[in-house]
């Protein structure tokens, strides 16, 4: 097994290295063949690993592969922990990655950075696998930073585009804030539990759940502090309020990576982290409450912003923020399995939506504004059908995958008695209406209504190379299948069948999914239950409202907009986060930095310490240099002096002067 796990991880790394370093030599076609093959190997083996776990022939694997260094009792290692949670993540990561790889062949067909792009997404797959397969915090951190790096590189892939550079810098800086907390969290874990190994840390936490530490004079539970700090990291990576600002901007990158990194995989690293750390979070009611409330806020309010966006990718980006909020709500309610379940279904249908949007964008020659689309179902029938399926899954249509995962979360929050659960329940319920509204708004604006396409773009559509649209549609179809059916088949084992086993720990008192399982009588019955479920009717209401205003009576829209002007302005300003960050933190930081640079850096450090020391050392060395005269008798004399020095030490020692 060890060899297989190594192969899963290293195949994409190899592909990335070859495509990146020798991309020019091997050419475009070979670059995509090689990288796709590498990911296909990973995906195939991951599926096989998952099958082994499901069929029960494989047990959880936890071994060290390579010891980098030993520092006292601290081992710095690379190792794999592969249990069912990991196996699910591996399959999600590699299959979505594979679909995106194939899709990229079409999407990037005319881009000069073709090989570079394939190298990056292969590298990303490697980094993400390292992250999910880690068995210790150090490797987790490595994967965490590595996916962040690739995300940075890919957001700014078109590095000559101003807005892309701004966006990747922003993503980088905001993630630093999260990583700062994350690193402190790891430090807290190491300091108080004396290990970086998951199993050892969890054991130590379970052995001493009441351990306290003193911060600024107040006593706090170590586990709470550690969990909150780790959660700050998760907030950065998974774009939760208030560290969400980078994700909408990240849409400046090419669409395939929006699907892969900023919807399906990297942004879910925070969800995975919290689920993996469930043996820690379960001991901290406070941390879970924070997760629950912040998740609920993100779920509702970020969905609202999605309503006023015109850029097709930004609508989906805000939708992603909102859905990530749902996942955190599930985690906060101790329904970790439901969170991971939604992560999985969401990965498929959100990747599908993004790739569909990308197909539209390519067809219309990089047009992203929905106001210049409309009636596209005539031109892009396959994209239309697959995106409709994705939309239905997203809004939670019964029998579709999204229905199962989202409804499970809503029901779980309903049953939870954690502080803030009442608020979260209301937020996620309203969120369903909002989700439905913005999703169908997008759907109707893009595929129905009058044609508002730029004539230039329409002409471009007929001149695309022949392979481009088909090669982009196959991944859509492949992703549409799991988007529709995967929930129906997997809800029973994943949520109620104890599928995750030891991988996820839930304290018996918190186990809302166990309560929910009493009401669960098979997937089909769960779907029929929709009729008496407020969430379903809210979704229907959202769809009807969207249909009414964006398809049936669009003429009424300006009147409504005028009435709601103040609200819309708040939403268009995204609640002012950007203004606050850009002018408050970034601007203030620059002022402070300038002051410190002038006084501290130039004056004190450079002037006095760095250059001053260097000058002193240089002068000293110049003085000493005279001794190395080249004369033999000087050298001999120095030896005699040295002997005398040692002899005086000897005498002093003997006399006991020291």
């Amino acid at each position, binding site marked *: 097994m060890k060899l297989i796990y190594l192969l899963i991880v290293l195949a994409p790394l190899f592909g990335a290295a070859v495509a990146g370093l020798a991309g020019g030599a091997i050419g475009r076609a070979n670059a995509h063949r090689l990288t796709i093959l590498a990911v296909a190997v990973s995906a195939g083996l991951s599926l096989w690993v998952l099958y082994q776990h499901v069929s029960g022939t494989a047990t959880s694997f936890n071994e060290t592969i390579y010891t980098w260094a030993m520092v006292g009792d601290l081992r710095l290692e690379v190792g794999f922990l592969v249990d069912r949670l990991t196996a699910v993540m591996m399959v999600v990561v590699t299959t979505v990655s594979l679909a995106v790889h194939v899709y990229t062949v079409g999407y990037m067909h005319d881009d000069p950075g073709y090989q570079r792009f394939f190298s990056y997404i292969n590298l990303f797959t490697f980094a993400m696998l390292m992250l999910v397969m880690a068995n210790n915090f150090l490797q987790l951190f490595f994967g965490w930073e590595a996916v962040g790096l690739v995300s940075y590189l890919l957001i700014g892939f078109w590095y000559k585009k101003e807005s892309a550079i701004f966006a990747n810098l922003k993503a980088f800086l905001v993630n630093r804030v999260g990583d700062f907390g994350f690193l402190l969290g790891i430090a807290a874990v190491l300091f108080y539990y004396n290990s970086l190994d998951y199993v050892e840390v969890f054991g130590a936490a379970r052995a001493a759940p009441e351990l306290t530490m003193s911060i600024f004079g107040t006593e706090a539970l170590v586990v709470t502090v550690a969990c909150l700090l780790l959660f700050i990291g998760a907030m950065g990576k998974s774009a939760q309020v208030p560290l969400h600002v980078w994700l909408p901007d990240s849409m400046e990158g090419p669409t395939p990576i929006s699907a892969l990194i900023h919807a399906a995989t990297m942004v879910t690293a925070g969800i995975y982290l919290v689920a993996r750390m469930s043996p820690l979070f379960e001991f901290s009611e406070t941390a879970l409450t924070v997760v629950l409330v912040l998740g609920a806020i993100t779920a509702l309010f970020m969905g609202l912003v999605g309503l006023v966006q015109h850029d097709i990718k930004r609508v989906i980006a805000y939708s992603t923020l909102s859905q990530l909020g749902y996942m955190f709500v599930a985690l906060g309610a101790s329904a970790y399995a439901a969170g991971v379940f939604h992560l999985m279904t969401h990965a498929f249908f959100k990747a599908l939506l993004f790739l569909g949007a990308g197909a539209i964008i390519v067809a219309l020659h990089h047009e992203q504004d929905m106001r210049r689309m409309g009636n596209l179902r005539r031109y892009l029938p396959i994209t239309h059908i697959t995106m409709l399926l994705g939309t239905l899954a997203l809004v939670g249509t019964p029998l579709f995958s999204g229905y199962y995962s989202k409804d499970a979360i809503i029901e779980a929050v309903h049953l939870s008695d954690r502080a803030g659960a009442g608020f979260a329940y209301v937020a996620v319920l309203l969120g369903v209406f909002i989700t439905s509204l913005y999703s169908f708004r997008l759907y109707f604006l893009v595929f129905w209504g009058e044609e508002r396409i730029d004539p230039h773009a329409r002409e471009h559509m007929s001149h695309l190379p022949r392979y481009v649209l088909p090669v982009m549609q196959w991944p859509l179809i492949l992703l549409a299948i799991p988007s529709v059916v995967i929930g129906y088949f997997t809800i029973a084992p994943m949520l109620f069948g104890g599928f995750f086993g030891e991988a996820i720990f839930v304290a018996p008192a918190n186990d809302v999914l166990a309560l929910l399982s009493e009401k669960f009588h098979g997937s089909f019955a769960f779907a029929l239950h929709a009729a008496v479920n407020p969430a379903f009717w809210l979704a229907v209401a959202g769809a009807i409202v969207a249909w009414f205003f964006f398809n049936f009576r669009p003429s009424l829209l300006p009147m409504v907009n005028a009435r709601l002007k103040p609200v819309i302005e708040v939403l268009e300003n995204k609640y002012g986060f950007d203004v606050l960050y850009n002018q408050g933190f970034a601007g203030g930081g620059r002022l402070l930095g300038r002051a410190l640079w002038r006084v501290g850096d130039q004056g004190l450090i450079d002037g006095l310490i760095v250059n001053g020391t260097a000058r002193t050392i240089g002068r000293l060395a110049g003085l000493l240099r005279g001794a190395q005269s080249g004369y033999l008798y000087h050298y001999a004399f120095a030896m005699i002096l040295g002997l005398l*020095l040692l002899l005086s030490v000897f005498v002093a020692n003997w006399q006991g002067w020291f």
Partner: protein
Amino acid sequence: MTFEMPQFALAAPEIWLGVMACVVLVADLFDRSKDSRIAFFLTQFTFVVAIWLALSTHWGEGVQHTFNGMYISDNLAGLLKASMAALAALTVGYSRDYLLQRDLLKGEFFLLALIALLGMFVMASAASMLILYMGLELLSLSLYAMVAFDRDSRVGSEAAMKYFVLGALSSGMLLYGMSMIYGASGSLIITEIAATAASGQNGLLLAFGMTFVLVGVAFKFGAVPFHMWVPDVYQGAPTAVSAFLGSAPKIAALALFLRLLVEGLGDLHAQWQLMAIILAVGSLAVGNLFALMQTNLKRMFAYSTISHIGFLFLGLIAGTDEGYAAALFYAISYGIMSAGGFGMIILLSRRGFEADMIDDMRGLNDRHSGFALVMLLLMFSMTGIPGTVGFYAKWMVLQALVEAGLVWLAVLAVVFAVIGAFYYLRVLKSVYFERLEDPMPIEAAMGTRAAMMGTGGVVLLLGLFPGALIAVCRAAFGL
């Protein structure tokens, strides 16, 4: 004293070297080729077999004495000999083309290298002061001759003369110290000296003799203030000889220290610790500060050697088995780096041109990115950057120091290591950031290229997987 037949088998490595030295001498007489092909390959073969013999004879066989207790066979001897022979093979491998291009390639060079190695082997297995001294002189005399190998070179002869005179002076001091120790303990056998030292008899006399012995040892290391010969000799000698001089003999000097001051006079640790601290701090300071100002790469390496010797001494100062193991690891890894550094100079030199200035490294990356990478690894390793073997060498020494409670020394060592980073990185600046108008292709034989790449690979490999070598070094001290 009764005469008994010694166990010659225990001395197989020395016997092999001695016999092969004679064989090479004779074989070379019949070799008509211009490049002393037979002598070269025979010598390399001898080195390789010597590694195998050293390990198979000494490693894991326990501690055995023979030749009336004057010869010792233990793990330490095995490891010392194997590493010395390996480094000798590497440096002699580098030297062939260099000597050939300068019409210096004669069979005698290989003969001298073999005899020098024989001297080192004798030192590594010496259990008597007399044997130790004999090995030392065998080594030194060969080295004097090697430094003067280019007879027509004025600087070479001058360097050899200085080395010889100062070496004689230090030998005199060493011999004087030994005679004092003999006077105090009544024996030349190291275990018996150790017994006297432990009993506390004649402590004053022993400590007095020890001071002189330390001077002799410090000279062999090139520790400050007995370092004056190092830069002149490194610079004056043919580069191939400098490479040889800078690697294996340092391990031999460590053997001298370990056999004499640790095994023999370990109980006087409190006496020699302070002196060793003076030597170490002096070496760190002078080595690093002087290296900053050099423009000649060979001279810079010489001062860098002095600073590394200071670091190595720190491990000895700790006075624990961990510390000695760290020093041994340091000596071996330094030997590799030093050989690589001089190897690079040889590689970039060609007939009538010595690439021994830092400026000669300019634009190396444009000339050959592979060798630039090797240079990067070597410089990083000398600086002590993680991922290279030099990091672990420094790390182990510092760890031993901290465990011995000498935190201030560890801090000082790190400060000097930071100063050292400057001149190593300056070389890299030349390699990577300075451009040449028309980069010259590198003319070097395949063997030299392969050796260079191999050295870089070893530095990296040991930096990533240091476990085995660390374990071996610790095992040599029974850890």
